[in-house]
């Protein structure tokens, strides 16, 4: 009797476990297929877009009239942007994908710059035609590589989910055909990187130049700690830890930190001259006691104590109990946007809790700023008449090529929005228009 009941119960249990197991497994498989399909779509779209790009670049090479060329470049730019998004959806760390992304970014920049140019007045130069031919060659290469991988993947029914697994388990060196047909980044990343920088005529990364403003001698570790103690206003008993940067750093620096009574301080000092690039003090900030304006006074005093002269407040914002202030260097009344310094002040007791002067030490030099060739009136006329100009300055900004140019900076309003408009003081052309971000609805308070 009992035996039969037990058997019955066990059977029911077994059946329900089986059903549950089956359903779980099915769910898992469904998710797996879904994730796999996302990868497949991205990959096949990418190869398709590379096909299209190769054709379109070839077509543009054969074109002669600017009326056709400009729209063609717009099209290439659009497709390259789509392809770039596809590439970003595939697992990171595969060489051809990496290579493709760099290629697409360069191609996008090139076609954008040429598409917006008036090719009637300013046709393609010989170098640019050469560059276009180079793009054609590269796109062919990448297309072939991707086509081959696509062929292997389709024929052998390969799964991108397995690629992910294979990339994860490098120790066991699982043999994965997609990975093999692709060669991992490991092998030839550096070769490619070397090859590509030479044949690029446009540098997409203009920010990466060496530091221009690091006067002083090289510091030893002890001297650097002393300098840090001075900046933090600390006694010698503080327990400092210090490390020196490695080969990848643009300029050698010491990272110095301390931790006491729940406060953690950190500063990057350049080895040459001991200049503070980034400084952060982390602690709990209590209730606000000071106004944003009082914090500004503290920040300004702090900068002059550290020897930053001629810094003018550019922007200030209050986040929770912290005031963040952005200062620009002012060269005889001209605001220099690349020489920016930011200071953070805790508004509970007015301590400075952060400083970043990286841009200042990177960019600041004694400049020989020319007199503007265009008068302020002429520059005003170049601004959209619907914008009411409220405030203006002379300013040095970096253009898209990374060169510093003198501009008139106009702050103006149109309806509710505020715009910052730069007019080139040499040519009178509109260099840049930015819409200022307004405060955002506090959704926490609404919900």
């Amino acid at each position: 009797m009992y035996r039969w009941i037990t058997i019955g119960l066990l059977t029911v249990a077994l059946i329900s476990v089986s059903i549950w197991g089956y359903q779980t497994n099915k769910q898992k498989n469904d998710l797996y297929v879904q994730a796999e399909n996302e990868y497949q779509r991205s990959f096949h779209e990418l190869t398709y877009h590379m096909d299209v790009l190769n054709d379109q670049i070839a077509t543009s090479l054969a074109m002669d009239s600017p009326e056709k060329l400009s729209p063609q470049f717009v099209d290439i730019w659009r497709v390259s942007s789509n392809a770039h998004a596809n590439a970003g959806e595939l697992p990171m760390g595969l060489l051809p994908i990496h290579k493709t992304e760099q290629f697409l970014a360069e191609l996008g920049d090139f076609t954008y710059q040429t598409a917006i140019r008036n090719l009637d007045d300013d046709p393609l130069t010989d170098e640019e035609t050469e560059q276009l031919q180079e793009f054609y060659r590269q796109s062919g290469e990448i297309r072939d590589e991707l086509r081959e991988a696509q062929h292997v993947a389709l024929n052998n029914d390969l799964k991108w989910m397995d690629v992910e697994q294979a990339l994860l388990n490098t120790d066991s060196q699982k043999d994965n055909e997609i990975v093999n047909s692709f060669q991992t980044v490991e092998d030839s990343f550096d070769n490619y990187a070397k090859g590509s920088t030479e044949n690029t005529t446009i540098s997409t990364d203009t920010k990466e130049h060496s530091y221009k403003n690091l006067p002083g001698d090289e510091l030893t570790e002890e001297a650097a700690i002393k300098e840090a103690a001075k900046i933090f206003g600390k006694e010698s008993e503080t327990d400092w830890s210090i490390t020196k940067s490695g080969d990848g750093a643009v300029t050698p620096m010491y990272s110095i930190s301390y931790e006491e009574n729940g406060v953690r301080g950190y500063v990057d000092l350049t080895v040459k001259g001991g200049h503070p690039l980034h400084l952060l003090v982390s602690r709990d900030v209590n209730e606000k006691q000071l106004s944003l304006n009082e914090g500004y006074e503290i920040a300004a005093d702090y900068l002059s104590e550290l020897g930053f002269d001629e810094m003018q407040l550019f922007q200030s914002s209050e986040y929770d109990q912290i005031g963040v202030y952005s200062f620009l260097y002012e060269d005889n009344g001209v605001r220099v946007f690349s020489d920016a310094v930011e200071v953070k002040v805790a508004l509970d007791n007015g301590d400075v809790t952060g400083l970043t002067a990286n841009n200042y030490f990177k960019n600041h030099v004694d400049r020989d700023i020319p007199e503007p060739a265009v008068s302020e009136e002429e520059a005003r006329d170049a601004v959209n008449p619907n914008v009411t100009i409220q405030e203006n300055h002379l300013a040095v900004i970096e253009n898209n090529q990374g060169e510093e140019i003198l501009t008139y900076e106009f702050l103006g309003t149109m309806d509710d929005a505020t715009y910052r408009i730069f007019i080139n003081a040499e040519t009178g052309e509109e260099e840049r228009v930015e819409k200022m971000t307004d405060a955002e609805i506090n959704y926490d308070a609404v919900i």
Partner: protein
Amino acid sequence: MNRQQKPMIYSLTFFILLATFVFAKPEQADAFSNQVIQQGAVGEDVIELQARLKHIGFYNGKIDGVFGWGTYWALRNFQYEFGMEIDGLAGQSTKDKLTKATEYDEQKVKQEMNGTQATPSGGNERESTPTGSVNVPQGYSNNDIQLMANAVYGEARGEPYEGQVAVAAVILNRLNSPLFPDTLSGVIFEPRAFTAVADGQIWLEPNEKAREAVLDAINGWDPSGNALYYFNPDTATSGWIWTRPQIKTIGKHIFCS
């Protein structure tokens, strides 16, 4: 004599105290505190400033308690019209002029502010954030910041503060690099880019520190030294990461370019 005076003094003090409680509050509330209000400020004084500027017709935006561009222009135009120094700062003389020229009905303004929003439920008053808006850095939304804070918290919550800022900075450096996607979500959700995304730790609730770290990174702090990659040497799964030129080590992470 002495005995009779004492209760008198007590009751007098009592009445004075009572009077202070009853009368002091409304009196204080419809006058500015003595701070100089500048662009970027948040709070009660800004609400009053906006309400007064609106009353006199210089400000036509929303009264939200955040001193943004709209308030700034309104204040400057007010200063211009009243022949004052135009500096966009609400100092003592500006506030005096404004108080004289306008009226401020705090209760009404507050009610209107609450009316346009769904009224906060009674028991859940948020005294510290009376404003209807929040400051956001140029070019970012609060949700961008939230998403990044999620990523930073998932990736680096056990790290020292500068290590968290550095991770946020790497995300931003990738955003500017041609090798990576061009959107914040593209960078964060790129497959195999961040382990916290792969194992779901990105959906842990981030703390205030992570958010602060993200804001610092957006505002220009980059302790990573312009790094594009970082890895934990104890758990790194791919070999090629070791071939990248290393910039520095912060906490458990090695940052490289």
